[in-house]
C-alpha cells in the first residue's frame, strides 16, 4: 500500500469527526430519527447485578430458542391428519398407516439433517421456558417486586405463564403420537365437562366429535402463529414496562428508592447477557444431545382405541393430571342433566382458582396491608413472613399435585398398593401446604432475629505464629453488607401490626 492512500485514509477519518465512521452513521441516524439522547440514556441504563435477575433472562432466551428451532421445524412438519403409509427410514414403522403429522415428525427425527437435534432442543427449551417462568415468578413474588407500580407487569407475567403452558400443550399434541393423542382426548373431555356450553365448546374447537376433523391444522396455526404472536407482543410489553419503570433492587449500600445501582447496558450488561444467551442455548443443545425427550417413534401413531402404560404429560401439565387422579368421583345427575364434578372441579375450577389468585395477589396484598406506596426496593422474603408463607404453601400445594400425577409409578416403584398411594396423596396434598405455612412463617420470624442473617459470611484467615500457635483473624465484612441495617428503605406501617412475640423494636432477639 502506498503512502498516498494511507494519508488519504487518515484525512478521511479526520473528516468523519472524532468518532469515526460509527459516529458518522449515528449522526445520519439522528438526523432522521432523533435517537441520540434516548440512545445514550439506553446505553447508560443500569442493571442490578444480583443473580436472581437472571431468571427472567433464562425465560426470555429459552423463548428465543423456541422461536429459532420452531421455525426450523415448520419447514418440515406437515400439519395434516390425512392417512399415509409410512415408508421412511425407521424400519419398525414401515408399512403402517399413520397420519402425515406423525409421519413428518418421524421424518424430521430421522431423515432431516439435524432434525432430531432441533426437535429435542425445541422440546427441552419449552420445558426450560415454563420452568424459568415459574422460578422467575417466584422470585418476583417472594421479594415483593410485584407491588405498586409494577402490578401491570405482574399481570402480563401471569398471562405469559398461562399462554406458555397452553402453547406447550398444543405443540406437544402436534406429532399425533399415541401419548399426545391421549392427552388431546383428555383435554376434549375436560371441555365437555363444563356445564351448559361444554359440548358446544368442544365441538367448535375440535370441529366435531372427538377426534375431530380439524384438530391438527387448528392446533398448528394456534401453536405456530397466533399464540407466539401474542406471547411476543406480551414479552415486548413486559420489557417495555421494565425499561420504563426501571429495575427493582435489593436494599444495600448507596441503594435507595430513588436510584438503581449496578452495571450499565453497554458494554457490561450487553456482554454478560449475550454470553448468557449463548450459555442457555449451549446448555439446551447439550441437554438435547445427551438426554432423549419425546421419542414418538417408540410410542407409535395415535389410535384412539390403544393406550400405553405410565403415560404422563410434560411436567407443567402434571399438576392438572395429579388433581384429576386424586379428586374423588363426585358427580351430579339430576333433572335430566349431568355435571361431571369429578372433572370440572380439578381440571377447570382448580386451575382457575390458582391462576385467579396469582392475578389477584397484588390487589389482595394492597387491600390487606393498606400499603399504596411506590416500591422500588425489594423485600427479603424473611421480612414478610405472611406473604412468604402463603407463597411457600401455594408452591407446596402445586408440587404435591405434581407428585400425585405419578401415583401409578410410585405404587409400582415402592411395591405398595395403588389405593394406599391414592389416599396418601389425597391426605398429603392438603396436609403439606397446611404444615408448610407455619413452618415458613416461623423460619422467617427466626431469621429476622438472627444477627447477620442474609449477609455473606466473611472468612477467617488462619495463620501460624513462629511458636506454632494458630490464630484465626476475622476479615472485615463485605462492604455491600455493611450498611444493610441502615439502608433507607420505606418501612411500611403494617409490619408492626403483625401479632408476634418480639421486643419493642420489632426484632426478636435469639440467643445463639
Amino acid at each position, binding site marked *: 500500500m502506498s503512502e498516498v492512500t494511507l494519508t488519504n485514509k487518515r484525512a478521511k477519518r479526520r473528516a468523519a469527526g472524532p468518532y469515526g465512521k460509527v459516529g458518522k452513521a449515528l449522526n445520519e441516524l439522528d438526523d432522521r430519527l432523533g435517537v441520540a439522547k434516548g440512545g445514550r440514556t439506553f446505553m447508560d441504563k443500569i442493571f442490578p447485578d444480583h443473580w436472581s435477575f437472571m431468571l427472567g433472562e433464562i425465560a426470555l432466551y429459552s423463548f428465543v430458542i423456541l422461536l429459532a428451532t420452531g421455525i426450523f421445524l415448520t419447514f418440515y412438519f406437515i400439519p395434516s391428519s390425512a392417512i399415509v403409509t409410512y415408508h421412511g427410514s425407521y424400519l419398525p414403522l414401515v408399512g403402517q398407516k399413520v397420519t402425515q403429522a406423525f409421519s413428518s415428525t418421524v421424518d424430521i427425527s430421522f431423515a432431516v439433517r439435524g432434525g432430531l437435534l432441533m426437535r429435542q432442543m425445541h422440546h427441552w427449551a419449552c420445558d426450560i421456558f415454563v420452568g424459568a417462568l415459574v422460578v422467575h415468578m417466584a422470585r418476583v413474588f417472594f421479594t415483593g417486586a410485584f407491588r405498586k407500580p409494577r402490578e401491570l407487569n405482574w399481570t402480563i407475567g401471569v398471562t405469559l405463564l398461562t399462554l406458555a403452558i397452553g402453547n406447550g400443550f398444543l405443540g406437544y399434541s402436534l406429532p399425533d403420537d399415541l401419548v399426545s393423542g391421549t392427552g388431546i382426548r383428555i383435554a376434549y*373431555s375436560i371441555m365437555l365437562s363444563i356445564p351448559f356450553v361444554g359440548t358446544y365448546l368442544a365441538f367448535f374447537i375440535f370441529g366435531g366429535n372427538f377426534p*375431530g376433523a380439524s384438530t391438527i391444522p387448528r392446533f398448528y396455526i394456534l401453536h405456530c402463529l397466533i399464540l407466539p404472536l401474542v406471547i411476543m407482543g406480551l414479552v415486548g410489553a413486559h420489557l417495555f414496562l421494565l425499561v420504563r419503570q426501571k429495575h427493582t433492587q435489593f436494599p444495600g449500600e448507596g441503594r435507595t*428508592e430513588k436510584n438503581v445501582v*449496578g452495571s*450499565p447496558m453497554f458494554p457490561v450488561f450487553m456482554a454478560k447477557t449475550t454470553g448468557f444467551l449463548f450459555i442457555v442455548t449451549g446448555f439446551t443443545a447439550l441437554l438435547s444431545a445427551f438426554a432423549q425427550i419425546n421419542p414418538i417413534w417408540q410410542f407409535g401413531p395415535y389410535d*384412539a382405541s390403544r393406550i400405553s402404560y405410565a403415560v404422563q404429560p410434560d411436567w407443567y401439565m402434571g399438576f392438572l393430571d395429579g388433581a384429576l387422579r386424586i379428586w374423588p368421583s363426585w358427580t351430579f345427575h339430576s333433572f335430566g342433566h*349431568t355435571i*361431571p364434578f*369429578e372433572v370440572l372441579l380439578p381440571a377447570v375450577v382448580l386451575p382457575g382458582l390458582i391462576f385467579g389468585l396469582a392475578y389477584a395477589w397484588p390487589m389482595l396484598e394492597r387491600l390487606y396491608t393498606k400499603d399504596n406506596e411506590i416500591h422500588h426496593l425489594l423485600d427479603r422474603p424473611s421480612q414478610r413472613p405472611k406473604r412468604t408463607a402463603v407463597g411457600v404453601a401455594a408452591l407446596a400445594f402445586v408440587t404435591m399435585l405434581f407428585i400425585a400425577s405419578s401415583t401409578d409409578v410410585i405404587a409400582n416403584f415402592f411395591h405398595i398398593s395403588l389405593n394406599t398411594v391414592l389416599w396418601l396423596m389425597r391426605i398429603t396434598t392438603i396436609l403439606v401446604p397446611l404444615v408448610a405455612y407455619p413452618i415458613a412463617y416461623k423460619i422467617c420470624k427466626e431469621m429476622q432475629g438472627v444477627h447477620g442473617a442474609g449477609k455473606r459470611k466473611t472468612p477467617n484467615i488462619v495463620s501460624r505464629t513462629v511458636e506454632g500457635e494458630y490464630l484465626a483473624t476475622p476479615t472485615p465484612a463485605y462492604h455491600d453488607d455493611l450498611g444493610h441495617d441502615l439502608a433507607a428503605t420505606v418501612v411500611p406501617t403494617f409490619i408492626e401490626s403483625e401479632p408476634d412475640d418480639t421486643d419493642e423494636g420489632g426484632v426478636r432477639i435469639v440467643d445463639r
Partner: protein
Amino acid sequence: MSEPEEHRTPVSLSGLSENDPHLLPAAKNPKTVELVIAINFLLGTVLTAGFGACYWINAQPWKLGATLGGGLFFFGVGLVAWGKYLMPRGPFVEERHVLANSEADRDAFAAAIVERGGAVMKRRKMLGGILAGGLGIFGVVAMFPVLRSLGPLPKGTLFHTDWRKDSYVVDQSGRRVSAGDLAVGSIMTVFPEGTQDSERGQAVDQTVLIRVSNQKFTTQKGRESWAPLGYVAYSKLCTHLGCPVGLYEQQLQLLVCPCHQSMFNVNNGAVPQFGPAPRPLPQLPLYIDSQGFLRAQADYDQPVGPGFWERA
C-alpha cells in the same frame, strides 16, 4: 477471591473522568483472565467449526448437539467473563425519576378527555346511543358465524355409537368373532363391523369383549340375556375422561384405565371400584346367532365415555 471487595461508592456514568477507579476492570489479574477468555473463545470456535463438519458429514445427532452446545457454551462463558471481569467494574448508579406527572399535567390530560369528550357528546346523546347499540349488535352477530362455522352442533352425536341391532362383532382386523374364539379369562377389543378402521370407530365404538366364568359373574337386573356364554362387552371408553380402558387385571377381574387409574369390576357390571371414574362402563347387549357369530342386540342404552351437561 476470599478477600472482601475494595469499597467503592456507586457513581453516575456521565461525566466520569477517564482514569476513574470505577472504570478499571474488576479482575485483579486481567492478563490471566484474558488468557482464560481467549481459551474459551478458541474452544468455542473449534467446536462450532466441528459442528459444521459434523453437519457436513451427517454425523449422529448427539455429535451435532455436543459440538453446537459445547461451542455456544464456551463462547457464552467467555463473553460473560469478559463482561464480569474485564469491563468497568462500577458500581454505577442511575437516578430514578418519578413517573407520575405534576398535578397540572394530570389535570390537563383529564380535562382534554373529559371536557372535549363532554362537548362532543353534549346534546348528541341520541347519536352515541344508536352507534353504541348498533355496534353492540354487530359485535354479537359477528360472533355467530365465527363460532357457528367452527364445527357442527353436538345434537345427538354424543348419545349414540355405531352399534346397531344385529351388528356383527369384529376384531381390529375386521374378522367376525364367533362363540369359540375366546377362552375364559381372555379379552379383545372389538368394533361393530365396518367401523374398525375408521377414526370414529376407534374413538367412539371401541368395546372390550371379555369371556368371564359364569360362576363368578353377577348379572345386573335387566341384563340377564346380555352376556351369552360368558361373553360380556363393555364400552372401552373410561367414564372419567374417555381414555381407553386398556389394562385387564385377570386375577381380580378388573379393567384398569392407565390414565388416572380408574378400576372397573368386570364381574359386576363394570362398576367403578377405585379411582375418579363416576359411572360404570356401559354394557353392550350381545347374542350369538345361529351360525355362532357374536352380534349386538342393540346400541348401548346410555352415552359412552365421559360425562357432559346434556347427558341425563
